[in-house]
């Protein structure tokens, strides 16, 4: 109910496979810490879901500095997937998150198929987790080989193993550094994903011309922020047309207008990443903005917007 007009509030609920969210606005992994970091600036209970920093079996130190560098309307990061590891996550970070009304989605990453499935298995036993998001892109970690997410067979294998290891909803997070995103999207759908999310960062680089060295110690970094939004939106549209599971849109989303573009292009929900850094209230503002937009357009549910793009 709108307190002023008495009109029914527009319905913001969406379903990501078996997971129902109060609204379609989540935080992107690695850009919102473990939630607590934003507690004094954001009303965490207003969010659709909180996705935490990617978790591995063992704690990781991450890459040497420098790890971040600003670029035109974006940033490169080479954090190197620093995280506290699954055990400390469960004992130190989860208790805070469990007290929130907002569903918690755990982003997981691994070096091998086994690591992914062992992680999924461990998290089965932790209370207060609503779903897993599986990062199969990891462009920042120098692992002899290619990223899982760039080869359909490898993406399939990770998806299968996580699917078998957990009863939780499984969201597979895709890498954009591929020729054909629809191919990968279909592969993970067939392998049992409940949903897909995309995009992770685009692989990029920057050079310090004075020292003639890469600006990031890791040479490569992941490009994120408003700069990548057009690429992300295109991939979300392609993926949404390729699969019938829900698609979660990510990439440069900063304002409610950005979020609406992704929903119309076929995303059932969105994640806000880099914007949390420079506009920590972005998520809340988008939630409010969606309600406002639905009212203006006289729509009763945000679901009416999903995939509503007209192309002829």
């Amino acid at each position: 109910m709108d307190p002023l007009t008495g009109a029914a509030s527009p319905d913001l609920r969406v379903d990501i496979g078996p997971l129902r969210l109060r609204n379609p606005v989540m935080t992107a992994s690695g850009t919102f810490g473990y939630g607590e970091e934003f507690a004094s600036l954001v009303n965490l209970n207003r969010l659709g879901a909180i996705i935490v920093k990617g978790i591995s079996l063992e704690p990781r130190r991450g890459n040497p500095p420098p790890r971040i560098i600003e670029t035109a309307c974006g940033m490169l990061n080479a954090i190197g997937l620093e995280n506290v590891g699954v055990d400390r996550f469960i004992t130190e970070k989860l208790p805070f998150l469990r007290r929130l009304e907002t569903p918690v989605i755990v982003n997981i990453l691994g070096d091998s198929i086994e690591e992914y499935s062992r992680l999924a298995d461990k998290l089965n036993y932790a209370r207060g987790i609503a779903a897993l998001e599986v990062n199969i892109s990891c462009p920042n970690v120098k692992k002899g080989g290619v990223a899982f997410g760039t080869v359909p067979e490898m993406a399939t294998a990770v998806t299968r193993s996580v699917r078998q290891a957990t009863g939780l909803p499984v969201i597979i997070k895709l890498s954009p550094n591929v020729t054909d995103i629809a191919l990968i999207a279909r592969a993970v759908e067939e392998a049992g994903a409940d949903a897909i999310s995309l995009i992770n960062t685009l692989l990029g680089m920057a050079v310090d011309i004075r020292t003639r060295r890469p600006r990031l110690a890791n040479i490569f970094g992941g490009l994120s922020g408003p700069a990548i939004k057009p690429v992300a939106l295109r991939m979300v549209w392609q993926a949404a047309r390729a699969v019938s599971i829900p698609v979660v849109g990510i990439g440069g989303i900063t304002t409610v207008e950005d979020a609406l573009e992704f929903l119309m292009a076929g995303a059932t929900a969105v994640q806000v990443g880099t914007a949390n850094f420079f506009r920590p209230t972005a998520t809340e503002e988008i939630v409010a903005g969606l309600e406002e937009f639905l009212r203006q357009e006289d729509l009763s549910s945000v679901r009416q917007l999903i995939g509503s793009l007209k192309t002829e």
Partner: protein
Amino acid sequence: MPEFQEKSPVRGREQLTPDVCRLTLHAPKIAEHARPGQFVMARAGATLDPLLRRPFSIHKATGDGLISILFKVVGKGTRLLAAAAESVEIDLIGPLGRGFDTTVAGPHCLIGGGMGIAPLYFLAERLMRAGRQASNPPVLLGAQTQAELLLLAEEFTELGYPVLTATDDGTIGHHGFVTELLDDILPEVQQVYVCGPMPMMRTVALKCRAAGTPCQVSLETHMACGLGACLGCTYPASGGGYLHVCKDGPVCSAEEVTWTL
């Protein structure tokens, strides 16, 4: 520790040199809770280029809800801030990070180089307020040239601190590094606070280590969030692993840090 986001109108603007600027901003919550050594993440305008907030030490915080930042124009972000006219709102998040430990007893020495002087004024003012001025050795202030130091040195003097200065070009005070002034003073002090360029802090840290005097340094790294979320602001810790400067710092004990420049 409480953190706030405040849209802070510019209440004062001073141009200390052609590229050093001081802004006074109305940010009552940040001003109330700030402690010396803490910083704010600032953003001017609605453009996405520059994209990220910029970190600045809190230079002054006063009872009337005002804070100041003192900065040098070095790139896009500082250029935008320096161009902010009276009453334009700067978007601030703060106070952030771990400040100076001001509970240490005994005579202390403050050493500031360049814009590293910014947090030291706030520190000096609070140390004085806490009644710690008695027979203090001088504050050591270094800069490239006289123009940068004139007003600042005077303000430290007004607080009641003796001041010694050094400039790269010798236009005022000692001609050379501010660190060279430390040798005479170090034996008398029980705590050193230093903020400035890394090579300067390293020299001070190593001198303090040799003398067995505790030293607090204020680190600078690139920061995306200032909130402990992005994990971008790492600095190698002496014990191995990394410090996250926005949370574990910016002020650290010199002994927590690896000095391998």
